[in-house]
């Protein structure tokens, strides 16, 4: 019995040692392969349905959805980026996380986008609609910030910048001109920061400086920076890809969307430059309104997404992630890193109307290492399903 037990014990020990050695070898191989596969690689993204939870608060229609369960909070009006598109977030949270400012659009008369204005008896000067900014607090109280206003950005001290229209109403054959105002809190006093009325859109605060656009003829975009009220300078002809986490640098896109630059916000000086059409890997174009975390930037790109690596004096295209254009014909807008490592990316992907089916919008959440994404349920594109943009509690954040 003892012998049997002894023999069995020795056999058991031998087997255990063998198993341990095998495990060690397997772990070594796993570690090597794992480390290799952790490197971000260019290639296609696989997109599957079944996104179980959004990586942050989200707006859609007249709802603000928060928490893991996506509890709905009723908004005072439906969200809409009618006047801003993806130039500025449709909803943006305050630094303390207690308030969400959001853009709305009150249609004053129905407009059929397929037909000309003349066929709808819309004449020059006729009112088409009115943009407004509203705010909801964490108790569910919802109120108007300003009628005839759009594009909000919170400063660290709780001040809010936005565009206030010269005429609150958007009219046919009239440019929607306004001024940039900064309000000291939701109920504070307005200070006008611009000298002349123009077609502006607020982008973001870079510390105490405000970045905003002037939209010109042919929708030419000019990125401006205000150092203080009335102290305005041009930063770039083009648009903003992303603002650095500390707000000192901004990555900008040229008018032709083929070149990216990193600029010092304080001086306007160029720190790095990249032609994305000749880079390796390369893309035909980049889009604006991306995100910057650590030393990585994510931006919309012709194939889908591009991730850039930023140094103090360098800018490189690190990874290109392509989407199936049969599934998402127009790619994505407003991609954002949703983790601190810069590996997870959330973005909006709209599918235009086809054969009488209305346009829909998906929220994608992608792992750029695994090159896989999950998407949520489609929402009507006119409901503006978007993540709420986060204003970091300190100057460390980025957009």
């Amino acid at each position, binding site marked *: 019995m003892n012998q049997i037990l002894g023999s069995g014990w020795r056999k058991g020990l031998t087997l255990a040692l063998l198993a341990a050695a095998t495990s060690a070898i397997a772990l070594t191989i796993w570690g090597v392969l794992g480390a290799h596969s952790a490197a971000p690689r260019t290639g296609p993204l696989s997109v599957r349905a079944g996104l179980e939870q959004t990586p942050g608060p989200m707006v859609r229609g007249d709802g603000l959805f928060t928490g893991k369960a996506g509890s709905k909070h009723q908004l005072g009006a439906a969200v809409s980026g009618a006047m801003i598109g993806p130039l500025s977030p449709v909803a943006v949270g305050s630094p303390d996380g207690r308030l969400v400012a959001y853009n709305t659009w009150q249609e004053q008369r129905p407009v059929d*986008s397929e037909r000309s204005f003349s066929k709808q008896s819309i004449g020059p000067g006729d009112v088409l609609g009115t943009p407004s900014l509203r705010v909801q607090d964490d108790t569910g109280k919802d109120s108007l910030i300003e009628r005839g206003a759009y594009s909000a950005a919170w400063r660290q001290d709780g001040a809010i910048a936005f565009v206030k229209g010269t005429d609150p109403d958007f009219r046919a054959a009239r440019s929607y001109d306004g001024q940039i105002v900064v309000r000291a809190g939701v109920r504070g006093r307005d200070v006008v920061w611009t000298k002349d009325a123009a077609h502006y859109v607020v982008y973001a605060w870079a510390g105490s400086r405000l970045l905003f656009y002037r939209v010109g003829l*042919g929708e*030419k975009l000019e990125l401006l920076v205000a150092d203080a009220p009335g102290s305005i300078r041009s930063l770039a002809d083009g648009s903003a890809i992303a603002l650095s986490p500390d707000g000192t640098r901004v990555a900008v896109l040229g008018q032709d969307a083929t070149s990216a630059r990193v600029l010092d916000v304080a001086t306007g000086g160029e720190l790095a430059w990249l032609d994305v059409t000749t880079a390796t890997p390369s893309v035909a174009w980049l889009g*604006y309104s991306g995100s910057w975390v650590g030393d990585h930037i994510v931006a919309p790109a*012709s194939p889908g997404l591009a991730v850039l690596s930023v140094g103090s004096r360098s800018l490189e295209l690190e990874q290109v992630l392509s989407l199936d254009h049969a599934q998402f014909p127009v790619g994505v*807008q407003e991609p954002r890193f949703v983790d601190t490592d810069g590996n997870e990316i959330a973005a909006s992907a*709209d599918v235009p109307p086809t054969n009488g089916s209305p346009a829909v919008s998906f929220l994608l959440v992608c792992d750029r290492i695994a090159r896989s994404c999950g998407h949520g349920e489609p929402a009507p594109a006119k409901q503006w399903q978007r993540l709420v943009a986060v204003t970091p509690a300190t100057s460390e954040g980025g957009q």
Partner: protein
Amino acid sequence: MKVRASIAAAVLAVTLLIPANAFAYVTWLGFTRQSNLASTLTMTWFVPNGSSGGGPGYYASQSWRAGSGVSRDACWIGHGWLPVGTYDLWGHWDNYNGVIAGRVFYLQNKPCWNGTWRTELFVHSEETAAQGQYCPTAGDDPYCWEGPSDYYSNGCIKVSRAGFPSDLRLVHDGWHARSGDHRHGYFTIDDWLTVRDG
């Protein structure tokens, strides 16, 4: 009889000698979206039977390569091509002087499919207010047609300014000649342009 025949022949001769552009035809444009760099702008005009010497009349057209936007997302301000639908013309200038210059046609605003308003849209090219070329650098100059990459735009429809006559000139002169409309500045022409997918 000979006198009548001579008068009739003279009238006929004079009629035939009058250039076609002396007639005002109903004229409109179509933009078929195929790609950002290579879509098609078509001018169509209807020649009624009175102009063609009898019969039901006919449609005539002329097409040019044209571009719009950088992306196919019509909801992307300053980046996507212009939305589908029919547009009124809001004005035309020969010597427009701005970030867009020279011969330009100004289009109405249009919402895309998620409600984003596209504004400040034109049909134009890259030339100076004096309709010339200004190419001071080796790079991409805004008033200089360097090549096919200039078909890209922030959303406007762009035609080539290269060659003689350039496509811009053919569009511009063709519009005045076919439509008989020689107005400049702000004015409205209903249903001037239709944008559709090709």
